[in-house]
């Protein structure tokens, strides 16, 4: 399943963007394993919109876990994926952990916000550094990419495809491996801090370093795809 990962600066400016495709995809067709083209364009918008939720979470002293699951899988705490067994994550707010209420979570854990948002079949996870950088990732839907992309993506560019098959409507959202994602974020955070220590690098500047990109992709390969 493809991922779109971005580091967003304090002024909503993207510092780094990357798309991770699934290298294990068997089909060799060009776009296999990646996002469909129209979604590629939409991804930044989805990610940008999710920043609102992240910012809201950032200052939540004690985010309540809302169990109002009248059928939706979107519990807030946030949007913990249905399959996630790690319940401690649900109550881990950013500030809450800072005030050492985070229980067994180590200090570095509390930056990870878990799943914060979703849009149709896409899940969005986020990680917040202490200087306000937002690491955000859109997790694509692996199962969909094999079937009909139009089914899940919000088709906005072409005329409405009314012939879209209805077969796979009720797909579950992809279960996310929280631990792996958290590890990924933490290591990217380390990379980011290293980049930040460069005296020629200013906060909020885009990171164009190819080695940074390479390392992030390597991490993505290791943990996610």
């Amino acid at each position, binding site marked *: 399943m493809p991922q779109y990962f971005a580091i967003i600066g304090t002024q909503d400016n993207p510092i780094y963007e990357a798309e991770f495709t699934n290298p294990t995809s068997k089909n060799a067709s060009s776009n296999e394993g990646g996002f469909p083209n129209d979604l590629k364009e939409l991804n930044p918008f989805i990610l*940008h919109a999710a920043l609102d939720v992240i910012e809201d979470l950032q200052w939540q002293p004690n985010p309540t876990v809302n169990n109002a699951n009248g059928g939706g899988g*979107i519990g807030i705490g946030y949007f913990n994926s249905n399959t996630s067994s790690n319940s401690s994550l649900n109550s881990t707010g950013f500030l809450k952990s800072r005030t050492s209420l985070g229980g067994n979570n180590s200090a570095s854990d509390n930056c990870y916000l878990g799943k914060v948002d979703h849009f149709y079949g896409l899940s969005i996870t986020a990680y917040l550094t202490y200087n306000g950088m937002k690491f955000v990732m859109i997790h694509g839907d692996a199962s969909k990419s094999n079937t009909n992309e139009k089914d899940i993506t919000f*088709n906005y560019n072409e005329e409405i495809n009314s012939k879209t098959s*209805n077969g796979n409507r009720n797909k579950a959202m992809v279960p996310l491996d929280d631990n792996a994602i958290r590890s990924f974020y933490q290591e990217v955070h380390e990379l980011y801090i290293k980049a930040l220590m460069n005296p020629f690098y200013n906060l909020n500047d885009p990171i164009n370093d190819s080695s940074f990109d390479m390392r992030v992709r390597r991490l993505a390969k290791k943990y996610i795809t």
Partner: protein
Amino acid sequence: MQSLTHYSTYIDPSRIRTLIVPIGKWRESSFTKAISRIKDFNEIRLLDITPIDSPLFTPQGFPNGRLLFDINIIAKLDESDMFLYDFEPFRKTFIVIGLVNDDSDPIENLEILKDKYPTVISHNLIYSSKDLDNTKTSDANVFYRRINEEISLETVMCDIGKNFLQALNHYYSSYKHVTLRSPGAIGGSSVLKTKLTRQVTTANSMMASKSSATSNPKRLSSFEATTNTLKRSASMKLATTLSTSENKAQQRSRGRQLKILGNFQLLSGRYIDAMASFTESIILLHKTRDYIWLGSGLDGLAICFILLSYLQLPFQIPEIIDIICPVPLIDPSSIENNNNLNSTSSPRNSVVINGLQSPRGSMAFNQRPALNIDVEKVNLPLLIKTLSEKTLYYYDLSLSHNTEYAPQIVYSTCLLKTLTFMTSCHNGTILSADILNDIIKGRHNHENNSQLKEDFNPLFNKIEVYAFANRLFELQLKDMELESQVEIYSTLAAVYKILGFLRKESFVLRLLMVTLLISSETLSWHQDYRALICNILNLYGIEIDQPESAPSGWLFLQKKAIQLCLAISEIISDKAYISKLSILLLRKYSKILTTAEEERMLQNYINPMVTSGVIKTYWDEYILRGVKIQSLEFDNSGAENSRIPLASALINESRKAKEISKINTQEVFNPFKQLQITAKARNNSNPKTETPPELFLIGDKAEFSIELQNPFKFDVPVSNIELNPKTAKYCTLIGDNFTNDNPYVIKPLSIQTISLILQVKKETFHDVHLIDSLNMSIFNLPPQEFKIVSYKDNSEVNAEEKCTYDQVKLQILPEQPELQLLNTSKMTGNVWMMLDGTSTNFTVTLRNKSLTCNIDYLQFTPVTSIEQSLKPDYWKKLRPDELYSLEKKLEWLKKNCITTKNAPRTMKPNEVIEFNLNVNVSNAPLELTGFDLLIEYGMKAADQSCVYLKKLRLPYKLTIKSSIEVPTMDIIPVNELLSDEMERLDWIDHLMKQIGDNENRKNDYALLLFDVRNSWIDGMSLEVQFEEFKSNSYLIEGSHTSRIIVPIKKIDYRENHFATTPIPSISKGRQFIQSGLTEQEEIGMRESFWFKEYLLSRLKGSWKLSTDKSITGTVDFGKFIEKIDAKMVSVACKGKSSFDIKMTMEKTNVKIGDSTEIVVEIQTNTKDRLNKTPPTEYLHYLIFDHFSSQALPKSNGKLLYNGSLSKPINSCKDTRSTLELIPLNRGKYEIHTCISDAACPESILHYNANFIVFTVY
């Protein structure tokens, strides 16, 4: 956005859809105004309405109730939701009101309305034309009222309400006996079934899978289990009302009937009745498991709760609700806390609510008393939310059914209105009157201030609301009707805005725009679109009205957003925004636009907008990146300022002086003030970084190069380039032959240079004209002024803040006079050959070429080649005497070599003048190869602001041929008197005359000998003069040398102080010159210098050419006499040496064998010698043979002497010494004497130049 989109409220089903249409000739503004007036009265109390004859709907039945009008001006498509009218009758438009402002026939108008809106049940007309009293119709549906009168308008609305109630009564009667069918059953396949993208929760999906067959007895039992409470506790009452013989279909039909009755009662304001109807229908439908109708009934009930709360009427929650879903109660303790806060509304819900569970969970509430619950005890907002959830849950359940399913529009409407309800509540801790008011009125413009309070515990927190909102995205929204999609998106946007999720809002607005964009329906222009575009741009941080600022944030998003807005603008053909947005995109986001994108923009937007005149100016004001002016005129002669005159400001000086003199007399004297002012004046007139202006004369042509930049990825055509009006006064451009059809094209992403010709036509005099902008026409737009933007700070193409403007300075001087050399007499090609020592006159003819300009000022300055070739530090390594002679020479060259006579001071236009030029090379060095005659001339400016100065340099070449030269010179003493017969020689004659009888006076004279060579080819006669002595004329043949002797009188050394007078310096101001000589050398130098000066000042020579007597010249001895050595000085000076030796002899003719005696008297001149002890000098005698000039050896056979030739003497006093001689041989001898140091006989202290010559016979 108000009129374009609809913000759904929770109580929408209780509002009467009303359409207002204009009849007659309305202006949009006045119609909108009238609508807003009517909207003020969209809530009518039943109390105010005349009772009607209908038990069901008469307003008397519930005077507290309200009629709520939902006033629209856009008609909904009736066909699209026709299938819903049975299920949700409130979707129908019930009332149409024609707003008439002319006096057309009311009957006719009503007919038209009925014809156009046949499904509408109540047609009304409001006449608002000026003369209302003319025609009165008795028709109850026609009203004559002025819109502006409030009271009358309210009455009209009450009457319309009454009409509606009557019509509704009629309408409902047709429903009474109809079997109501679900929308799915009516619409069939055309109805869009709810499609959920998420997976239904496990429990639900399990149920859904099973509920596909509701008749399945096994399934039934499981359902029974969930609702057994109902059965056990409440079924007794039901049992009585529903006879067991009634089959399920009848019960269902009855339930449905009651539900829609409830809906109608809601519309008619009879809320208590509606609640009763709904409750009853719910009981029936619940029993029959008619999910979709059950859900709708629950929804209706919830609306009843809200409306009753709004009316502040107490009511009880029906028991069935508690059975279906547990009613959340309020913690008693918190009631007390809140009672004093707000008594009118239901309390807040800080209570822990037992999670809202699936129906299975209701088992846990068995022990609850199964009685109706007072509303005061209930957490109403939560209950409503729960009811909505329940509704949705039932809708979910219905989805597996083939016909009895919830259409997506129903589902989404329910989601949406619940969402708006939650949004309204999210700001408050209780369901206050304000919040209820907002819900009823559909207002949603809250300030989000919930974050301020510390322990703020809202009814629904932000994230809850957001999570609920997100459920809309579980639906496949794109499959829905455009109208519904627009409603969903705009409502979501409004909700996000209230929540403060601005990015979400922008995202949803973007989705909305995309939806609009891809819809096949044609959109007509509406102001709201522009508001929408503004809103989305604002949300993405794009400042459309501030094109100067650099974009910040996520540029990619902004670019896409603008492109989207552009597409929307194109669809609604909002030209103003198309141009605005496309220019914004080009200006700010050019860097991230691709070539294809830019070209498409050019093609689709820019070019059409330019053609249609919407874009009036070129968008990139930084196109002009540089202007250079290069003069095309060349100086004809090499001298500077020969063409362009130097302008010296007259006025400026006086201005400056004025500035300086402006000193406040009241002030205490400030010694630095003057300095400051002058410094300032200096800085002003000559700032260090300023470059001097380009100078031109009227009529000049210059190359005018313009650098134009195209930062875009398409060609930019430039069709016209003009100077700005300010500059056009002074210059014109030639060569701008671009036309609209044949423009100059700047290639994409390049800087190109265009060269034109600039013709100067008017003078600026002393002022500097600045060209800082050009008028250009780009893309065939009207000419526009562009400033020159300098390069330096423009590393980034559009970095607006950094740009600095450049300017080209131009100074245009008036037409100038031009001096021209016509002729120099005798000379051809300005070349002349001269004999050294001569001088020549020439006549120079000059002309003022200009036909209009006077020459007000003329000055002639000759500059010789010697002066030109001289290095500025020529004086550094010269000895003072050499320097003197050099500078003397220079001075002469400057003053006397070239002179002018009768030189003119002014000249008129086209005047020819002559003047004399005298070239004198009498003292000029032979190295002189020519001279330049520099003529500085000028005129005053016409405005008297300054004086112009031009230079004309006339070069002349000279060749000086040497004539008389003096190769050698010597001075000898006069030692013997010459015989009389020699007196025919001029110098002897002169000498003898001077000496006269006193033979001793011969010692006062010396002889100056010099050789004279005639280097010229012809013979010359030379005369020499020294004081009184005047020589004969000697004829010297060409290339011959002859010796000339001049007698000179000795100089008294003691009187002239040669040694102590320093060598004068001609050029003053050189300090601390150190010759590096010792004192003795210095003295020697002075002596020789002064002696030379003495000699040269008296020695004169002149010559005549033998072949051409007219050519005469003088001899410059100084030129040839390099230096005079000490020996010559000592010969010519009396009393110079430290000793004076006087030798005498009795007779100069001695016979062989006769003894003779030489007496030597020595006098010491210098006093310091007198103290020296012991005196250690020796006097030496030297004897020479007079003819051979050979010294005789000490012992020889020619002369015998007595004693030694060296004698010690005491120089401290005058000494006398004698030497006795006996000549042995015939001959002529000389006896010399000299004094040497005793210690070192080799060093001769003094040599006596006088010697004695005697003859032995």
